C-alpha cells in the first residue's frame, strides 16, 4: 500500500436531508482519509449513502434542505462549513466530479467544447485562444480522436463512452487534486467500462491526484482500487486495503457482498443468507446496530451496544466484534 500525504480527512461526517422539518442523516458518522496517489473505493448497496457522501464533499447538495455536520478537512479548510457560493472556489479547481449517466450530465444545448471550456473561464486566467487549445489538449488526453471536430459537436452526437470521456475531461480541466467518480461506469457497456477505468488509472498516475471511486461493482474495485470502504446504512462497516479486504473480509455484510457464502446447503434447504434491503432513511434504527435486523438468527448477546470500528489487522477496520460470533447457518463452525 502506498503511503503518502493526506489530501482529504473526513471526521465524523453527518449529512441529513430535511423531510418535514426533521433532518434524517443519510451519512451518519463517516470518518475517512484520502491520500495523494490513491484510489479509494466506496462500495455498498443502493441507498446506503455513497452519493450523499460524495455530494457533501463537493458541496453539490441542496444547501437549503441539507445539513452537513462534522469535518471535511481539505487544505486547512472545513468544507462542511462552506455555503453554495463559497464552494465555487473549490468545485472544479480542487475537486472534480465524474457522474454516472454521461448523457444527462451534459447540457444538450451546448457544444462539447463550450462545456469543457466553461470551468476554465471561471477558474483560470487563460485567454480565449489558450482555453480553446486547452480544450483540444484535454480531449486528446482523455483519448478522443479528432478533438477539433468533437469540440464543435453536441452531446447527442457522441456515443456513451465518448460522452463519459468528455465528462472526465471536464472534471480534470483545472487539474484538481481530488476526483470523485460516482459510478462512472455503471451506465456503460462492459468493454467501454474497462477503457474508462484504464483512463482513470492512467490519469491518476499522471497527475498524482486522489480519486474517490463510488461503485457497487466489486470487479471494478478489484481492478483499480487501492483501498476500499464498505458502507452500510450511512456508516462505514469495514475498511481495508484492497487485497486485505478481498482475502480476508470480516464483516458479515462485506462477506455477503463478496457472495463468498453458499446459497444452498447440501440437502437443498435454503440457508440464512442476508436478505432484505437497506432500510429507508426514515426507518433507519438510529441506535445500536443497523445491521442486526438482517441477521436475526444471531443471538442478542452477540451484538455490541454501540458498535465502533476496530482495527483487526494493519489498516483493516471492522465495525463491531460480531464477525467473531457471526456465522451463516451451515457455514464452517456455525452453530445451528
Amino acid at each position, binding site marked *: 500500500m502506498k503511503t503518502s500525504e493526506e489530501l482529504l480527512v473526513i471526521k465524523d461526517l453527518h449529512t441529513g436531508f430535511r423531510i418535514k422539518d426533521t433532518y434524517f442523516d443519510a451519512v451518519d458518522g463517516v470518518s475517512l482519509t484520502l491520500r495523494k496517489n490513491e484510489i479509494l473505493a466506496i462500495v455498498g448497496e443502493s441507498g446506503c449513502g455513497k452519493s450523499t457522501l460524495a455530494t457533501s464533499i463537493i458541496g453539490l447538495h441542496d444547501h437549503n434542505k441539507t445539513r452537513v455536520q462534522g469535518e471535511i478537512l481539505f487544505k486547512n479548510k472545513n468544507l462542511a462549513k462552506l455555503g453554495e457560493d463559497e464552494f465555487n472556489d473549490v*468545485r472544479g479547481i480542487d475537486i472534480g466530479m465524474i457522474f454516472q449517466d454521461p448523457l444527462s450530465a451534459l447540457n*444538450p444545448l451546448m457544444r462539447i467544447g463550450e462545456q469543457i471550456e466553461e470551468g476554465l473561464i471561471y477558474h483560470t486566467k487563460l485567454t480565449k485562444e489558450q482555453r480553446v487549445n486547452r480544450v483540444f489538449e484535454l480531449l486528446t488526453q482523455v483519448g478522443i480522436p479528432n478533438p477539433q471536430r468533437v469540440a464543435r459537436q453536441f452531446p447527442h452526437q457522441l456515443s456513451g463512452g465518448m460522452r463519459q470521456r468528455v465528462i472526465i475531461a471536464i472534471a480534470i480541466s483545472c487539474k484538481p487534486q481530488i476526483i470523485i467518480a460516482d459510478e462512472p461506469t455503471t451506465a456503460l457497456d462492459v468493454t467501454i467500462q474497462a477503457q474508462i477505468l484504464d483512463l482513470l488509472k492512467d490519469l491518476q498516475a499522471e497527475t498524482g491526484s486522489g480519486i474517490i471511486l463510488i461503485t457497487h461493482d466489486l470487479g471494478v474495485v478489484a481492478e483499480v482500487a487501492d483501498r476500499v470502504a464498505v458502507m452500510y446504512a450511512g456508516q462505514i462497516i469495514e475498511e481495508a486495503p484492497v487485497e486485505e479486504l478481498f482475502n480476508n473480509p470480516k464483516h458479515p455484510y462485506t462477506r455477503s457482498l463478496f457472495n463468498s457464502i453458499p446459497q444452498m446447503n447440501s440437502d437443498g434447504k435454503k440457508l440464512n443468507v442476508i436478505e432484505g434491503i437497506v432500510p429507508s432513511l426514515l426507518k433507519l434504527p438510529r441506535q445500536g446496530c443497523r445491521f442486526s435486523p438482517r441477521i436475526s438468527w444471531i443471538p442478542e448477546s452477540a451484538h455490541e451496544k454501540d458498535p465502533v470500528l476496530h482495527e483487526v489487522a494493519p489498516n483493516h477496520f471492522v465495525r463491531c466484534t460480531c464477525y467473531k460470533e457471526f456465522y451463516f447457518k451451515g457455514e464452517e463452525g456455525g452453530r445451528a
Partner: protein
Amino acid sequence: MWKTVVRRFLIMIPQLFVLSLLIFIMAKNMPGDPFTGKITPETDPARIEELRELNGLNDPWYEQYARWVGNAFQGEFGNSYTYKVKVSTLIGERAMNTFWLSLLTAVMLYAIAVPLGVLAGRFHNSWFDRGVVLYSFISYAIPTFVLALILLYFFGYKLQWFPTTGSVDVREVPGSAGYYISKIYHMILPAFTSAVLGTVAIIQYLRTEVVDAKSMDYVRTARAKGVPANKVYSKHIFRNSLLPVAAFIGFTITGLLGGSIFIETIFAYPGMGQLFISSIASRDYSVITALVMLYGFLALLGSLLSDIIMSIVDPRIRIE
C-alpha cells in the same frame, strides 16, 4: 432544411383541399342563404329566385365548389354579399389590422410572461413566486370579456388614456407619422388585454420547467465545475427551460393571427375575428369560407413554423 420546408408546403396542398371541401359542404348546409334575411313581405319571391339563379346558388354543389376553388386559386374569393366588395379586399384590410395587433400582443405577451415565469421558477416558493401564482390564478379565472371591459372602463372611459374603438383616428392622413402613431395607440389596450390573458400558460409552463431543470444532471455538472449560480441559471437552466416555449411560438403567433373574436368585438377593432363573427351572423358565405380556409392555412403554417423554430433552437432536432 429548405428542401423540407418546400416539401411541407407541398403537403399542405392536399390538406387544404380536404379542408376546403369540408368547409364548402358545411357552409352550404347551414340553414338559409345570403338572401334569406332580405325577404320581407313586400319582396317579390320571383326576384329573390332570380338573384339566386344569377349568383349560381341553384347550381349543383359540386359545380359551385369547382367554381369557388378555381377562383380561389387566383386569390379570388368572390364578393361579399354584405359589404359588396371583393372578399380579398375585405379580408386584406382586416388581416393587416389583425397582423399588427397580433405582433404587438405577442411582444407584450412574451415581455410579461418570460421574466415572470423564469423568476418565479428561480425563486420558487418565495414571496415573488407566490405573487406570480396568485396573478396566474386571477388572470386564469377572469373571463376575457370581463377583463376587457374593466380595462376599457378604467383606461378608456374613466381615465381616457386610450381610445375605446376602432383601429385608427379617422382624422389622420393615411401614411403620415401621426397615422401610424394613432394605429399603435389604438392597439395598446386590446393587445395588452389579450397578452395578459395569454400569459398564464407561458408563466406556469416556464416556472415548472425552471424548477424541474434545477435538479437536472447537467445543472449539477455545471455546479460541479464551479460555475457561479447566476451563470448556472443564465447559461444552463434558462436556455433549456425556454425551449418548449420557443417551440410553441409558431402556434401562438398563428393563433393570434386568427384574431381574437372577443377582443376585437369588444374593442370594436376591425380585424379578422370581428369580421368572422359578423359574416357568420349575416351568412356571408364567401367571406366565411375564405376566412376558415385562411385559419386552416394559418394552423398548418403554425405547426411548420414551430418545427422550423425547434430545429433552430434545439440541436437534437434536425428536420430532414
